[in-house]
């Protein structure tokens, strides 16, 4: 059970959250203009790094807000959480 620091509510157990996959993938403004390859990139292709991952969480059973997090997928330790719209904070990437 991860303990996740919601930017609004503070540290809460994982069971109050839903996971939202990789962060900072903006939906294209004009999808019709994209070729199939680029649309495929938006829909399906993901970083899946072994290391620091910028990802989305939603405090669905709390304040219900989406937010972003940096988590090290080698340890599952969070390095930062931040609100939607904010840039990913700089962290020393171990």
């Amino acid at each position, binding site marked *: *059970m991860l303990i996740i620091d919601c930017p609004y509510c503070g540290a809460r157990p994982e069971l109050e959250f839903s996971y939202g996959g990789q962060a900072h993938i903006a939906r294209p403004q*004009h999808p019709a203009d*994209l070729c199939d390859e680029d649309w495929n990139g938006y*829909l399906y292709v993901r970083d899946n790094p072994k290391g620091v991952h910028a990802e989305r969480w939603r405090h669905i059973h709390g304040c219900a807000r*989406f937010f972003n997090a940096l988590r090290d997928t080698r*340890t*599952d330790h969070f390095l930062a959480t931040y609100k*939607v719209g904010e840039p990913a904070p700089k962290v020393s990437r171990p």
Partner: protein
Amino acid sequence: MTSSFRTASGGRVDRDRPVNFTFDGKAYVGLHGDTLASALLANGVHLVGRSFKYHRPRGIVGSGADEPNALVGVRRDAARYTPNLLATQVELYDGLAAVSQNRYPSLEYDCMAVNDTLLGRFIPAGFYYKTFMWPKGAWDKLYEPRIRKAAGLGVAPTAPDPDVYTQRYAHADILVIGAGPAGIAAAQQAAASGARVILADDRPAMGGSLLAAADTTVDGEDARAWLRGSLAALAALSNVTMLPRTIAFGYYPHNWIGLAEKLTDHLPYPASGQPRERLWQVRARQVVIAAGSIERPLVFPDNDRPGIMLADAARTYLQEYGVMVGRKAVIVAAHDSAYRVAHELRAAGIEIAAIVDIRSPVPAAQSARDAGLRVLCDAKVEGTRGRLRVSAITITADGKRETLACDTVLMAGGFTPSVHLFSQSRGKLVWDEAIQAYLPGESGEAERSAGACRGRFALSEALADGAEAGRSAARDAGFSPMDLPIPSAQGARACGGGGHIGAVPTGADLSRAKAFVDWQNDVTARDIALAAREGFLSIEHVKRYTTTGMATDQGKLSNINALGIVSNVTGRSIPEIGLTTFRAPYTPVTFGTLAGKARGDLFDPMRVTAIHDWAAEHGAVFEDVGNWKRARYFPRHGEDMHAAVGRECLQVRNQVGIFDASTLGKIEVVGPDAAEFMNRFYVNAWLKLGVGRCRYGVLLREDGFVLDDGVVGRLAPDRFHVTTTTGGAARVLAMMEDYLQTEWSDLKVWLTSTTEQWSVIAVQGPKARAVLAPLVTGIDLSAEAFPHMSIADAQICGVPMRLMRVSFTGELGFEVNVPSGHGRMVWEAIWECGRSNGMLAYGTETMHVLRAEKGFIIIGQETDGTVTPDDAGLGWAIGKAKPDFVGKRSLARPAMIAPDRKQLVGLLTHDAATVLEEGAQITDPLDPRAAIGHVTSAYHSVALGRSIALALVRGGRARMGHTLHVPMPDGAITAEVVQPVFLDPEGARIHV
């Protein structure tokens, strides 16, 4: 009555409280405070089991969680049988009935011992990989059943467990795991800082090694008295929770620790309903692991006979339980702890035939000799004798071979720090050359180890180390430690590191002898050598090939010796070989404890509507849809579903029916940009939908496949009442929020779930208006004033109503939304009013038939996550002028516009009486081997007097009028492809 191996005094057993118990049906008497193991030993019983593979007689080896042999079944009653319990952990209670395992017919005479005597040399480690391959297919028919029968340990329980299990979440500033000297010292310091402390220990009595501390003082006080005082003081603190009988079994990410507390297994008569065990899930700011150490056995030929046990376990039995493990003992020593054991046992009256020390020189030997003990140094161990109990040990010392008669052989191999939990926490283990052990290194979580589990073996060291750990944990948890003095111990003999790892020196041929490394799994030194010979060099491969360390003790005794032997055979150092992974749980945890309260009706939330009880009272048969219970049909007088549904359908078509649609998801979409939001989200166009009007909405995933559907009503320019499917409600709302919060934060619109605000009562049928009209106020229900697909707020039975004129049946229909606290009242009022109009209640099955007659799809039945709107015949719903909506771009991908996609069609069997099977495949008569689609829905339609079906068929709309085959095991059924509307295609019945 005193058992023959009980000392006259001493120990923490209650000599005034004898306890009757049986083992394998034979009656014995123990004392209150005994474990099953100590009580058996007090009665002179060592033989308690047969080994896994060779069925060799086995005795009690240890005194705690590390016991590999003494696995027993305990039966309270027919439904309360627990296999594979450790006799060393089973607390004695009056009437306890324990049985031995894995023997036939009895412990004394076990037929399967042939595996040892005759077959042993032909069934080495991994033998089963090399044989049983002929003839093909014989493995699971012929060989495997026999192997399975021989394997396994105890017998699984055969009846449902009537016991209950409970659970609790807890938060601690500091969790201290292990209440030995280090743990207690840590808890004292942590508690003094004001932090919330939980102190957990797996044994019924806290104190760890202090419980067996003889001739030792702490702070000038007898150690055991100091222990009692310290525990009492801790228990009196309001910020300390003491959890005896509680094992910390698993260390999960972010300092989340699983504890299992035993509540009733030690009681002769647990109160009815009293939980048997409790699962604690503790989130701790800081953790102090004070898990102690485990004594190492010694690997020598025939080291597994009953009566051969760990030396410190023998001392524990004496000091804690007043039990002498034998009359005459030989101690095989690789560590100075042997001498302490010898002195204490001899003082209790056990003859020490000799201390056989494999080391040389041994400084401790001289003082032992001075005290009159016989000590042989630089010794080799050649073997032992004795069938059901050891009777002698043969050794070689000073070049002289000697057989020493004895009834007990004690192994003092040194101590291995218990680093299991530390390793589970993903801390890094570091090999310590000086004390020959893996010790905790860099932490992976907010924890620290203290005491013997990090190599601080001596009592004074452990107390000081624990105190420091308690202080630093308090500091790191944000508290200010008090300057509590550190307890100091005197008199305890130092028991440092060192000892022996791997096989003990012997003159015997280890390729012939059985020198056990893993007692329970019957893995010998020669098995491990064989694995290395066959190229299994990684310790993980050795473990898996030989199964060493994979028994129920998870290698607590065996792992380190296995490492030593691999090191020896391969010439590589232990750190080079590495270490196998320590996996949770530390000791086995009951399934029921982990499952907790989630059982029976509480296994998963059972969501019920406000009308549920009415339906139940009226004989409804329910079905599960997600978490909801929905009334499926209302049988009368022993009707089957077919008959009930036929009757319900007919009544709706001819008169009127009432249906509980409350489970439909409902979302209120409110804000100035509500219409724009709907426009972006659904395939439909919404901007021009008038207030008071409804529209059928279709929603795609971004990959273009249909996700959900539902009727949407516009209540105001800035307010929509959106409905979803029952199962899709949460999914749709979550997806809406995702887009709104992360993509379209420019939109001023908010979403509120109103699923449970409203009870939804569907009134459907030609007489629906007549039924409702007398009950409603503030609205004109006429076709002109309130046409099909209208929505309005009004009142019914004096309570607010949101009325929708919609139909999923093809009949004149209304959906009455009322606040759910009034749901049943309004339902009953409509019911009363409807009965004179021939109304009956119908369930989901009838609803399915009625909508299929009209060709309305059901998400999840006609769609399956691979269906586009066009496939489902919903292309008309798409707002063609919209530049974008969720999923639109994906609809342009090559596969989505391929000409041979599966399309929704109707099927009419040539034999009108034949109802197709849902899920049946469809083939083209020209190519019967390739399926071109499947039946999604199929029913008998009473209204049409024949069967109907909906199907997804490749290129289906181009096959109208064609005959297709539906192949079944007993032959193909022929059917004609038709439009997927069977009744009233013009919709005349709806618009009345």
